[in-house]
């Protein structure tokens, strides 16, 4: 009941898993946990992509290099993604405009794939200069938003997230917690905001889908 009251606009339908969740709070927690793990996983994988750029042949103890960056980065990314993924549906609810554009899991998967592709491009493709790289990535990110989100609120939130995250990483780098090999934008890489924006859109997409798990969409919240 609480769920229905809280979300009058979203047609709540759910699969067997979510239906076993008894309360709104529990549901929220589970969604948060799922998002957290997705975030951690993506952070690890994408970090690996960045590491890989310089090294081609790995020594046998390559597993350690997966965790070679600071340990707190993946949990932070996970927390951030959980927050973002919960924030998007919450915002939709408060604005009273449910997100209906391409609400299905295949589209979400496509979105994630494009996001990983953007990261891949930023790590692997050799660009002539950094401006070109940043512009390309910005165009790709906007394309991602247009293809999978297309809501003004999503765009605004994404820009806000990108700004905040860039600010945070600037502060971190400024205080020497973390370092980039070749900073070209104050202290960080200039493509960072684009990646953050795309990541925000992607996690929001996942979060929205999780919040609106439907029978037709066939849930697989897990």
């Amino acid at each position, binding site marked *: *009941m609480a769920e229905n009251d809280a979300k009058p606009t979203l047609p709540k339908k759910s699969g067997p898993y979510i239906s076993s969740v*008894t309360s709104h709070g529990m549901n929220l927690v589970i969604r948060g946990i799922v998002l957290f793990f997705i975030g951690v996983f993506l952070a690890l*994988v994408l970090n690996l992509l960045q590491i890989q750029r310089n090294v081609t042949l790995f020594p046998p103890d390559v597993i350690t290099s997966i965790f070679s960056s600071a340990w707190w980065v993946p949990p932070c990314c996970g927390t951030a993604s959980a927050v973002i993924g919960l924030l998007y549906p919450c915002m939709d609810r408060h604005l009273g405009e449910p997100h209906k554009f391409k609400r299905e899991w295949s589209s979400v998967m*496509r979105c994630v794939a494009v996001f990983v592709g953007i990261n891949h491009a930023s790590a692997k493709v050799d660009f002539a200069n950094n401006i070109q790289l940043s512009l390309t990535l910005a165009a790709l990110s906007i394309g991602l938003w247009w293809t999978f989100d297309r809501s003004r609120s999503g765009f605004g939130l994404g820009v806000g997230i990108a700004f905040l995250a860039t600010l945070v990483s600037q502060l971190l780098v400024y205080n020497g917690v973390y370092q980039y090999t070749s900073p070209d934008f104050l202290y960080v890489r200039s493509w960072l905001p684009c990646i953050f924006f795309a990541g925000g859109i992607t996690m929001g997409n996942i979060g929205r889908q999780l919040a609106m798990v439907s029978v037709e969409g066939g849930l697989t919240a897990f």
Partner: protein
Amino acid sequence: MTLTEKLRERISRAFYSHGLLCASYPIPIILFTGLCILACCYPLLKLPLPGTGPVEFSTPVKDYFPPSPDVVSQQGDPSERPDWYVGAPVAYIQQIFVKATVSPWQKNFLAVDVFRSPLSRVFQLVEEIRNHALRDSSGVRSLEEVCLQVTDLLPGLRKLRNLLPEHGCLLLSPGNFWQNDRERFNADPDIIKTIHQHEPKTLQTSATLKDLLFGLPGKYSGVNLYNRRRVVSYTVTLGLQRYDSRFLSSLRSRLKLLHPSPNCTLREDSIVHVHFKEEIGIAELIPLVTTYIILFAYIYFSTRKIDMVKSKWGLALAAVVTVLSSLLMSVGLCTLFGLTPTLNGGEIFPYLVVVIGLENVLVLTKSVVSTPVDLEVKLRIAQGLSNESWSIMKNMATELGIILIGYFTLVPAIQEFCLFAVVGLVSDFFLQMLFFTTVLSIDIRRMELADLNKRLPAEACLPPAKPASRSQRYERQPAVRPATPHTITLQPSSFRNLRLPKRLRVIYFFARTRLAQRLIMAGTVIWIGILVYTDPAGLRTYLTSQVTEQSPLGEAGLPPMPVPGGVLPAGDPKIDLSVFPSDPIQLSENQTQQPEGRGNGQTELGTEAEVTWGAEDEEIWRKLSFRHWPSLFSYYNITLAKRYISILPAIPVTLYLNPQEALEVRHPQEANRYHPFLSSTGGKLSAEAQPDQTSSRLHGHRDVTLYKVAALGLASGILLVLLLFCLYRLLCPKNYGQNGLSHSRRRRGDLPCDDYGYSPPETEIVPLVLRGHLMDIECLASDGMLLVSCCLVGQIRVWDAQTGDCLTVIPKPRLRRDSSGIFDYQESWDHSPDGKNGLDDSFESSHQLKRMLSPPQPPLFCDQPDLTSLIDTNFSEQVKVAQSEPRLRAVGGRQKEAGYDFSSLVGKVYEDEEGGCGGRRRSLGDESLSGFDKSSPLPSWGGDFESSVWSLDLQGNLIVAGRSNGKLEVWDAIEGTLRSSNDESQSGITALVFLNNRIVAARLNGSLDFFSLETHTSLNHLQFRGRQSVCAHLVGVLGCLCSPLILSSAPRLLTSASRGPQVFRLEDSCCLFTLQGHSGAITAVYIDQTMVLASGGQDGAICLWDVLTGSKVSHMYAHRGDVTSLTCTTSCVISSGLDDVISIWDRSSGIKLYSIQQEMGCGSSLGVISDNLLVTGGQGCVSFWDIGYGDLLQTVYLGKSNESQPARQILVLENAAIVCNFGSELSLVYVPSVLEKLD
């Protein structure tokens, strides 16, 4: 007509004709497409095989010089030169290939003697190589100058620190096992253990330390105890930084002088350059695997949306094939036009698939499937195509535009990607249009033929009418219970996929697909494949040699013709070199002496051995793992990825050791440990072994390994079986097969279940029981907040629907107490069955009641009803026909001769086949009360209390009650006061609709009265105004739900086809349509905002009408017997009939989806909570069903287990609570929490 519209029409027309073409000639088109795919993929054959295998290129040794680092200034034919052959190699590898044997062999020698003394000579040989120096005009050059200087080992390899050289020349030999120290070697009691101590225990396909130091595959080394050939081979591997031809040839000639190999036929004329591709490490693999996982998830989620086709899997496969072959085509086309892919194909592949996408395919399928089923297949395909043509073209144009933008980023990698994507998109479009459409048409045609005729007959779904033996239940015979009280009869069609509980679904999936079995099979095949591929002597080498054979420069791989022994290899460059310690004369001496010594010296001691050099020794490094060199260099943090090494022709060295030498180096412990080498058969065997060495030399070793593997396999198999058995015992309960009724707390036992025997967890919910009514509840009404009920005695109670509190009782309790003794009596009676715990209290009470009330039976009105209603209800729900008949005769005097068909009356309220003058709702309390109240009327009582309430409606806080005597009353629900009443007509009000301020009352005499309600502000008194009476035909069912239309129907008397339901407009009460089409009377109607109207008749047929035009939309034969209730959701129509079957129909197509067999008497109690949640009543329980899938979600038992009142009515409130009418009690059931989220 604008340009876009023109374009649109043209496109859609083109697609239409194309669809017709595809569906008309499916086979030729598929063949044509297949040919196109093959033709486009043909250039792919020229591409190298995928994999990270090294590539070779050989150049002659003569006038070799390292290639210049500049690509442009290369001489020679550039076409022969691979593009990686640029710059100096990482290293030159010089191997000194040693073959040693003890000769002549004495019979009392031990097995270790085969390799101990030959290995001991390696120290000497290494010293010779290390100390070799070339003196010529430019000075002295030593090995240190030309060799590859290596630094530290990687920090992770500390255990190898003593074994691999550090800070010096890269010189590897078996001597490294003993730190190149002869003393250590001599002191080593167990050589084999030393050598094998660093061998990995698990399956290892890459180079091991033994391979590295021996420089050749372990099985060729001959260092084992079963070496019948008694020839030990090893190499000394030398890594060189620079290519110094003079130094190398001096080394070669010196070694040949010292240890001549007279019959050596190794070719020495070419250097092989081996180029290594980029390695794929774990770190690269993880992102790759992630993208592929995402890709598969995408494909999965996309293809699962394919529905309504004959073979879902077939179409999904076709979709995937479409995408994959379009990718292959694009790569092939790009190669054809000279765009060789430089990107790593495996990496960009997932992104390409995502860009190309499966969307079009799905959209096509959906569009085709949604065309009318009754059309011809050709036309369906054509229509579906042309419907989606515009969006497909638009999407395609958008994607092309995006890719075009990407092309102008001018980044080479992105440009290449875009190029591929464009070609891929175009070929994908081509395939969709030709291949997929055709496959779809074939599929649809198959479905037309096979499934459609199977789907239509609804009768097939009805289970045979079974004589349920309720009487036996009373006798507590749980064994004889109705077989399946809750079964869904499902149609075996692809129409819907049944949703089972997750656990079962997983198991069924495993069982259906034999997943585990197949996985194991696939795993085995892959494993074997890996073994074969990576085996140094396996497929890989074969392929390599094939490739080198084909390549013009690969003659090195060809085995040379065997040359008779004693002939020196041609091209020996020793002639013009002045080699420091060598002596040409000594050479000739050695050559002549050695065979002599062998020949006449020690023949009597044993057989002699001769070292032969054959074709199998040619380029022995080829037999090494192809990861041999990369792993060696990676130990020093030197990568070979995208670089190459040059392998120089090996220098053959043959060592013959005499028996004294072998005896000298023998370790004292070894003599005790090993027996003489095959003392009995050794000589004979070794003599025989000479001709066919290759076949038999490792025989014994292999045997032991085989036995070990077999034993291990057996042990692990037994373990696995035991483990599975334990798991089985753990998972399956002991009473497996006993119907799973371990929770047999419920004596009734017949748990509702699915077709699959799955019964969901039952929930004991204590419902909110609303007690207070003295007799059976007749009418119910609710507006979400309030709940109004009226029992047979005419007592109206108002409840709070949320809390279950009784707010108001009409009439007021005190009045009632004062006034009528019958209430007291009834109350006392009411308590009486409480003591009983039987199932039959209701029956008993009703029986009792009937006996009580049978004497006063004054026919008050002409339409005075009889007892049939009450009797019907009770009997139909609880008593079997056989039993009820006599009682009925005893009680209902008017009934008995009627030949009552009880089964046709079950659950039916409105139907009365032979009732006197149209009595429709009769109630027991009615007559008794009316008789009673006549004698003592209540002056203080404003309302009419003489007659029973036949109909009830509620809006706001106003209750409208229609009474049997034609009186219409409006009550205040909170205060319980009469606000207004109207008794203009005497005819009983059978149905009421209260909407806004209008009241529509249907009366027994067939008139429909329209009242409007007005408020007098001063008196707060409501007044009826403007009554309009419309003479409709006898109004039986009145349906009206928030729509400005009133639907009425004639239930009886006019059974001819002349009259159907009539539709009236609420505002002006004018009759809009009479819907004609039913052959019998109308028994149930439904109307909602979507302007679709459903009606069910006596003939068991359901008609759907379009309200705007009054035309019949569809007509389906639903039930055997009357349709008793009818309701719709947005997608289905749910009907229940006298046959106790609830049927669910597809609303748009009128096709029956499935049906649910209900318990006796509960047939018509159903309610729709949401679009996909249905609740049905049962014997003391309510069940929740998923409408979309037809599976039982949950059964909720109300109250204690041994009370089993049937749920006669179910009313769904807005907050998803359900009110069930259980006799005289109301139960307020909130939807179980499990189901809460479903809506």
